[in-house]
């Protein structure tokens, strides 16, 4: 339980604080009446968390920026149909997660042609994961280990189904409650729990030798 509190996302905390300060409802209503400045203010309440999620799930800044752009443009165009039946937080996350899921599905198709090879233990790994990132560090050995660990984790995450990946990402890295995750993904809390369990089991299996 303590671990969960450590994992809390400061961006979200700050976001929640801001949401108290300026009532989103007012901004949403203004935006629904065509006030672009109000919409831009609304964007600023959520965009750091959105960009972070997109960056994690797409893996590149360019793709993350595209998802960010598409998500908020879609929100702007459709804000008229937002009827306060759920929080704006859930609504915007729904848009972003849908875009990210599309991206992951396309990526999975492309990945079939990616340069995947087998290591000496028979486990698959992506050649692209082995490319060093070129950043200088104070401790090259530690950097190398960290990079290898990161590559292994990224590889394991990429082998999850898009939906498992999404549930795991929202829970583990964004600290969302599984009830909210269910709402965002149009499913039940129970299904979200099962998906998280499955994702964790798969990851543990793939990263068993790292512990």
């Amino acid at each position: 339980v303590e671990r969960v509190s450590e994992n809390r996302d400061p961006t979200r905390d700050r976001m929640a604080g801001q949401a108290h300060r300026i009532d989103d409802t007012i901004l949403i209503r203004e935006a629904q009446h065509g006030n672009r400045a109000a919409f831009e203010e609304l964007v600023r309440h959520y965009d750091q968390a959105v960009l972070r999620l997109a960056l994690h799930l797409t893996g590149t800044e360019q793709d993350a920026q595209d998802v960010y752009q598409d998500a908020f443009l879609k929100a702007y165009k459709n804000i008229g149909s937002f009827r306060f039946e759920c929080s704006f937080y859930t609504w915007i996350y729904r848009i972003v997660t849908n875009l990210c899921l599309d991206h992951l599905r396309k990526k999975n198709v492309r990945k079939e042609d990616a340069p995947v090879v087998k290591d000496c233990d028979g486990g698959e790994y992506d050649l692209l994961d082995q490319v060093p990132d070129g950043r200088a560090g104070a401790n090259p050995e530690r950097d190398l280990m960290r990079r290898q660990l990161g590559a292994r984790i990224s590889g394991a995450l990429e082998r999850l189904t898009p939906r498992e990946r999404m549930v795991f990402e929202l829970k583990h890295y964004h600290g969302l409650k599984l009830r909210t995750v269910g709402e965002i993904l149009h499913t039940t809390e129970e299904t979200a729990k099962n998906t998280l369990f499955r994702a964790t089991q798969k990851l543990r299996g793939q990263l068993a030798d790292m512990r």
Partner: protein
Amino acid sequence: MKCEWVRENITLHVYGELADDARHELEQHVARCADCAAELKAEQEFHALLGEEREARPTPNLLAASRMKLQEALETAEQGGFWRRLAFDPANWLRQVNFSPALASAILMVGFAGGLGASYEVFGHQPGTPATTKAPAPAEASITGIQSITQEPGSNQIDIKYNTVSTLETQGSLNDQRIQQLLLFAARNNYNSGVRMDSVDLLTKKPDVLQVRDALIYALQYDTNPGVRLKALDGLGGFVKDDVQVRDAVLQALVSDSNPGVRTEAMRLIEPVKADGSVRGVLMTLAAKDQSQYIKSQARTMLAQLPEID
């Protein structure tokens, strides 16, 4: 069976997603069962292993670039039509009334009933049975709207809920929460730019308060009056170094503010952080193609003072 249940729920336990009674049950079991305790430890270690990595956060540059790109796209984006359907369009409304006699009759009846209700209020009550006026009679000009009119069945008592506007006055120091709240409200919402100017001017004395800083950023980005934007800029100046949001807002003003004075002031404020990646990027763009000769030459001068990046 118990061990199986525990293993199925250990993940949820580590993520703090178990109900209190289930959590209690699990903890009780783990305290007694060495196998399950080992499983819990393994799950916690795995959790920690994943937590160490992938803490990648978007850089301020990426965030600023994404915001700018979005702003450009919003310039040309059009909203869907739903809000327009909700918005009150008197001409369309009259057309509808024109073509729907039933609706017109209903409105007429409501109007008639309303008039009747009003006369009950004014003339209807008997001497000796005072009308239950919970509020003193308001001046007509201060009534902003009637919320509801209901008549108790079988009586002549009418209950009207109405909203009023009245001018109130409050006094206090700048440290007073109420005063701060009102100033923040005035900075964002007042139609009178003089009032906005006064409130922003006072708020610049409290830029340490996060809410105040947000209000100043808002004023810098969205206020229509350049004087107010300049005042906001003055208040934010001290935070360009330490607060990324302030830096982004000042950079945005430097790039896109319509007023040359505001841009020049923004240019002066970013001088101490000119080596920052996002600032350098903006300076390079300005030096290459800004329409203002002054901004262009200032950007070039600042860039020339920077060390080369290889």
